[in-house]
């Protein structure tokens, strides 16, 4: 994990599972909207809690697109409000 990735802050309470981050991230890598190719992964491991897990794969370079386009404050950058 590089320094820039550590600057991303995950706020699971705020994530609504809309996958906007995955769509935006995948566009950067593929030039198409292809969530399977995103470096950020939203999953719903906690069943009916409505809470989502936000994970980053090895290819994440910490560019912050996910945070920039997050509609709910589920991912922010260090120093940004949640």
């Amino acid at each position: 994990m590089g320094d820039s990735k550590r600057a991303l802050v995950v706020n699971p309470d705020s994530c609504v599972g809309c996958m906007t981050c995955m769509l935006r991230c995948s566009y950067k890598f593929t030039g198409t909207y292809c969530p399977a190719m995103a470096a950020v992964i939203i999953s719903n491991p906690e069943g009916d809690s409505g809470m989502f897990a936000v994970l980053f794969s090895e290819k994440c370079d910490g560019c912050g697109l996910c945070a920039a386009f997050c509609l709910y404050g589920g991912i922010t950058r260090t120093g940004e409000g949640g």
Partner: protein
Amino acid sequence: MAFPGYAGRILYVDLTGGKVRTEETPREIIHSYIGGSGGNTWLARDLISARTEPLSPENPIIIGAGPFSGTVVPGGAKVFISTRLPAGGAFARGSGGGAFALMMKSCGFDHVVITGSSPSPVYIKIIQGSAELCDASGLWGCDIYEAVDRLKSLHGPCSVIPIGVSGEKLVKVSITSIDKGGTIGRGGLPAVMGSKNLKAVVACLGSTGIEVARHAEFSGIVGGLLKRMKSWPGRKMILDSGMSLQFIEWWGSGSTLVKNGTEVLSPTPDKIASFEGFARSYVANRKPLGCPGCPMADKEVVTVTEGPYSGTVCYGNNIQTLPATKANFGKWVKVTELVNREGLDWFDFENMVSLCHFLMDRGILTPGDLGGVKIDENDEDSYLELARLTARRQGFGDVLAEGLLGLEKWLDPAARRYVNHIKGLSPVFDPRANYMGTMEFTQTTNPRGGHVAFGGSPTYTRGKTMEDFQRHGDRMGISRQAMNRVIREDTFSLGRLSRYSEDWCSLFDCLSLCNRAFVNRFYSVDTITSLLSAVTGLDRTAEDLMLTAERSWNLWRMINERLGFSREDDHPPKMWFFPVRDGDLELTIKDYFDREEITPSRMDQLLDEYYAERGWDPDTGQPTEEKKKQLGLEGL
């Protein structure tokens, strides 16, 4: 190489032969129907005939997504399912939120066409470029929530359209929920799936990327939309409470009817205080869920955290009359959870419970008629028992399982006038409680029946001026020439306006755009034209798109003509002309301005105006040959 905005292929699944094949998405869909519900209707044109019974193997289930789904267009996540529904017999189109459209397109498919009937329970697993039929015998008997949980744990990232026990038992008053949260298919889609031994359709996360032809242009338009949506003052209420507070507002304004729509539920001070407590609990225990790419997350999971129902969880927002009469939060969640798990359509189910209660009060039905089951529209336990019985077709539940048409047939002929339905579906909005706007009127003309997925017109709220109507007309792609027919000095033709309200929403349905008012309000036909042109690289015009939306609607109507539907079926329920008691007052249907009463003969005139604006034969209520030719539908 797929066309920009499209996944590129259609998946065909024959459950009888266990065969799967794919074809390229036809250019005719892309150019003349866009996709989504339009593409579904085009694909159905050769599959539905007068002999296609709803629960027969021949009845297709067609799933469709439009070119906006799978991208980041705000609200562009809807999936559409078309089939002939058993509750009313219409070939219908239904829509739902969630990630199914995105997942389906990620596997490379714009549409899925399912026909036949499996000899044993199966589910369809859509994977990259293909599909597998998987044994579902271990899932048979699972409710909707259990089926989703088990399939998601098996297949990882995916979206699931399951059926509950109601679908397995061919219950006509059934519905399902995509991933537990996005309802779809009221009128018995689950029964159609059950008749095919199809427990679920699972769309896995595939590796197909959706291309956008002119991305810089696309990003600019999407960015502008998101900026407006995120700064809209109403957004906070949507995120905090979803659609639930809307129901509370209706109730508080005296717009909720009880006793089979014969009385207004009076908002007395003690009831208001009780209901406010309910609303506080609701908001405090709600976690919003969002469809892909949508900034207006109005879906939700609601959890009871204290009291005897602690730990109960429900998805969706089925707040209707019940909490307004009892306002017991924990027990309401329990009722909603059970109805959703069983897969029953709340609108029709509640309507039937209220009707039976009303008929019991009048002595028309007796406890013996109901086999001893308690029916009380104000009692949660009554709903809990009836939901279990209906989903399993046990006792009196077998009567309710047949839906409003079945119940009507079961009743003594003299009692049938009290059944409130349009083409077998319960209307969602009763014009006696409010007024006759497009949302109320188009429930009668909707080929599916009393359903309210359509609207988007200035009559949503009271108090609009003719200038507002003109502004909305421009937004909705109504030509000035047509608007001159709609607006008449200080009033308007509801029948004529309704045609354009339907076409406007037909356009949304072709694109995969959500029709919720708080999404719809940010779009104009010019925005949509620019957005679609940027996505596909095809330079479309606003006129072209509105013609496409009209074509899709007309073909839908024509398919239902094959099934025997006509003007006769567009008549409003007799109950709409039964006065509603509001204290000492008796309410009847009024027009938008509260100037005139809408009588049955006035309703007939409104239908005449609607057919005239549609270019349909006023006697049959069907597209004329001239109209078909104008839309390129001749010979179909």
